């Protein structure tokens, strides 16, 4: 299996505009316009790195997030060139905006896998700007039949999500290159098999530690925690506020503080990708009160495949509960 994942690093819109009150939006947009003007000129050099060099005979595919690109390349193997749009675990994916180079990569793709639920809505804009009849788009939200009101967009943490995505990728790649259908199908089966250790780890956690109280900063790993039977004690609104980059209410912050101070949780899952003064103070409290910390990621960290990444997160959760061990970063 060859994995060609060109990393696109020029992320240029710094603000998550949705999260700010409408009054503020105009001034933020004014700032954004300035930022665009500056960065378009400053990032010209790095932008060319995103040019997709499609080897002849290969299907060009794009995963909006690196985990989806990883699944595409595991299934497409030598017949597919998969590129990830968001693959930098050091930035907040929620505030990502596409640059012109991303637009050209996406425009050339024959297969696109994107998350939906507003997590990567810039993909829809780019696709609309470069219409193509032969392009196939798998939106995971649509694939799973989830309504727009679904609160938690981090669908890839749900153990039942990726097998369905993989099946859709097998189907679409087979339609794009019928000659290799058997090859894609075999890779799809192999992919499902690579998930087995993770699924077993989740099931065993549920069997041994169901009801374990945990605290989180954001709903990043919530689907996995729910599958593992953990009891998420952090109020949803606090998780959503941190995810959306708005100030949480002091009442909710105090509630979370008390989860640590009164040791009412056994593990603290901390989103490494989005931190601010509030999450940092939670981290400090958790460390003070000797509550093991598990660092979680929204975008697949380097050196992992989707299955090994999920397994590592679940093992870190188990280690926190059984051995009282922190896994600050993967």
């Amino acid at each position: 299996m060859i994995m060609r994942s060109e990393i696109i690093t020029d992320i240029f819109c710094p603000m998550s505009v949705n999260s700010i009150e409408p009054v503020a939006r105009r001034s933020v947009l004014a700032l954004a316009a300035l930022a665009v003007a500056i960065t378009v000129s400053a990032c010209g050099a790095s932008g060319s790195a995103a040019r997709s060099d499609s080897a002849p005979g290969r299907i060009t595919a794009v995963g909006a997030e690196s985990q989806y690109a990883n699944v595409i390349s595991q299934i497409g193997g030598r017949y597919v060139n998969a590129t990830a749009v968001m693959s930098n675990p050091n930035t907040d994916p929620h505030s990502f905006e596409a640059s012109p180079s991303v637009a050209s990569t996406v425009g050339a793709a024959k297969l696109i896998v994107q998350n939906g639920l507003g997590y990567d809505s810039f993909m829809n804009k780019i696709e609309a700007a470069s219409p193509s009849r032969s392009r196939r788009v798998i939106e995971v939200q649509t694939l799973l039949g989830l309504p727009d009101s679904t609160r938690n967009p981090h669908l890839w943490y749900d153990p039942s999500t990726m097998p369905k995505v993989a099946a859709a990728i097998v189907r679409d790649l087979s339609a794009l290159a019928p000659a290799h259908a058997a090859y894609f199908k075999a890779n799809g089966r192999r992919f499902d098999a690579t998930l087995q250790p993770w699924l077993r780890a989740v099931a065993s956690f549920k069997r041994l530690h169901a009801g374990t109280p945990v605290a989180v900063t954001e709903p990043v790993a919530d689907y996995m925690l729910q599958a593992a039977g953990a009891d998420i004690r952090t109020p949803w609104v606090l998780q959503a506020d941190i995810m959306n980059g708005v100030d949480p209410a002091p009442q909710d912050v105090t509630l979370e503080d008390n989860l640590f101070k009164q040791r009412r949780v056994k593990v603290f899952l901390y989103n490494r990708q989005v931190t601010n003064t509030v999450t940092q103070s939670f981290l400090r409290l958790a460390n003070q009160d000797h509550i093991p910390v598990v660092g979680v990621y929204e975008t697949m960290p380097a050196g992992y495949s989707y299955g090994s990444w999920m397994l590592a997160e679940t093992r870190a959760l188990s280690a926190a509960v059984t051995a009282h061990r922190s896994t600050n970063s993967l």
Partner: protein
Amino acid sequence: MTRSLHTRTTWTPRSTETAVHALLRAIVEPGFFADGAVQTAAALGGVVAVVAGLIGVFTVIRSQAFAGHALSDIGSAGGSSAYLVGLAPLWGFVGISVLAAAAMERIGVQRARGRDVATGIVLGVGFALASLFLYLGMTYHNGSGEIPTILFGSVFTLSAAELPLVIGLGAVALLVALTLYRPLLLASVSPELAAARGVRVRLVGAAYLLALAITVALCDLTIGAILSTALLVGPAAAALRLTSRPHRAALLAAAISLACTWLGLLLAWDSFYWPPLRHGWPVSFFIVTLVLIVYLAAGALARGRRLRG
């Protein structure tokens, strides 16, 4: 019948008590005073409010509200650069405000003719820098919520560790204003007369600009870079509508500013229980709205007084 009468007589005082209690609970939701974030916000916001009220009176007398606004907007560049290098935003706010004040002084903020132009130019550069720093910060840091924090403040997320620094900076600003009180007042009202009396008008103006820069930086911390002029100018302007004596106006402005800040904190706390439920409204919104209400009320009061007198 007797029983019901009996229960009624014993119930009346207690139900009044519960009604009062319920009202108090409705205003000061349980836990307001005990909450750590509220205590820190009240202490920090209180210090900032008093300094802003006192210094703001001179800003209004000297007609430097626009300069103050420019300094606070430029603060966004400071806050974002501090975030970029991993410092507390306050350092950035203070550093950039003092630098910008120096730049404005050099370009000629003291001459009435050059003032708006100098201020406008420095203001534009400040926003340009803020856009660059925010972009770089968002690209290379894994953060969230910096933009609302820097532009609109988030006093409930401040740490108590910042209190000594805030008090120290506030003391410096007040010390400058107190030391220069008389010459500053004279130079503000009539620069020509002050110069004739031997006051070094430019030096006094520059020292005042330093105090203003520090005050603005402190306001940036509580209600954000965009809104901070409201706290600086609003209470002072309201106070000057009610009294023309500078020292009285300064004290009154400090009181108004403190009241608006603390009441703003309380309303923000209570808004947790308003729709959308469990989402507190931003503190800055309440503080700035209260300042406007006081300013309008002071205008009405002053008009009423003129009509009667």
